[in-house]
């Protein structure tokens, strides 16, 4: 029962935050909406026993990424004068049709929701996988150790790239 109540509350909060991100004219409000969504999704992770991922979500996303977003908004200034003049002739109607199709898909999923397209989902006992640090670390450092190392390389490249971009203009002039 507690999971159902929390799912409804946090799902509504996540959707409200997501809508705020898209609708708000001020990018700061968008960032705040994104923060609400990220926290709600973190609580949904906890409901599904993904404790470590929830903690990492709060620390990395709500902590680091959103701070970075707010810093960049501060750097380039709040630009609320987004012009809504039409420059694309027919693409928006196409997108509308596509969005309608996705809404229909989600509605069908919810209405006819026996969800058999998650194969073998009904045969195993849920809640047996408890995502503690120890449980995550075991596949991470055995089966996926190569991907883990590649991630380290990726982060190094990203940091170097960000520094190179920061020095870009100074080198040109």
């Amino acid at each position, binding site marked *: 029962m507690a999971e159902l109540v929390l799912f409804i509350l946090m799902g509504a909060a996540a959707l409200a935050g997501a809508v705020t991100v898209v609708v708000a004219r001020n*990018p700061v409000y968008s960032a705040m909406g994104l923060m609400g969504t*990220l926290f709600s999704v973190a609580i949904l992770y906890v409901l599904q026993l993904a404790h470590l*991922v929830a903690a990492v979500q709060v620390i990395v996303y709500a902590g680091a990424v959103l701070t970075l977003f707010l810093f960049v908004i501060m750097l*380039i200034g709040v630009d609320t004068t987004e*012009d809504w003049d039409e420059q694309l002739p027919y693409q928006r109607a196409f997108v509308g049709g596509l969005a309608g199709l996705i809404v229909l898909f989600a509605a069908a999923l919810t209405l006819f929701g026996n969800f058999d397209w998650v194969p073998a989902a009904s045969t195993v006992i849920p809640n047996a996988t408890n995502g503690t640090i120890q449980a995550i670390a075991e596949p991470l450092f055995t089966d996926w150790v190569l991907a883990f190392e590649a991630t380290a390389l*990726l982060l190094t490249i990203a940091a170097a790239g960000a520094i190179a971009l920061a020095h870009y203009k100074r080198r040109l002039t």
Partner: protein
Amino acid sequence: MIVAAGWYMALAAALFLIGSLGMLLRRNALVMFMCIELMLNAVNLTLISAGRALNDLNGQVAVFFILVVAAAEVVVGLAIIVAIFRRRETASVDELSELRG
């Protein structure tokens, strides 16, 4: 009472839809970036709920890697936005349509 995985996936589909709509409708590069984060979160939620339904921890490991890739992507993307802003004084993607400095 356990909420079925399909409900989480329906929520994730709705989040992904909102994110993709924002990506397509907004012109502010920063807001478009936030919409990418929304979509990544929707996918993460899908992976976590599928992992629980299938009793498989690899879903959570995959989410872990997606988080790292998203962090790296944010760093580089925001650096690009700041670099563009320093040259062009705008963060609107409509002004940046000719793909050169």
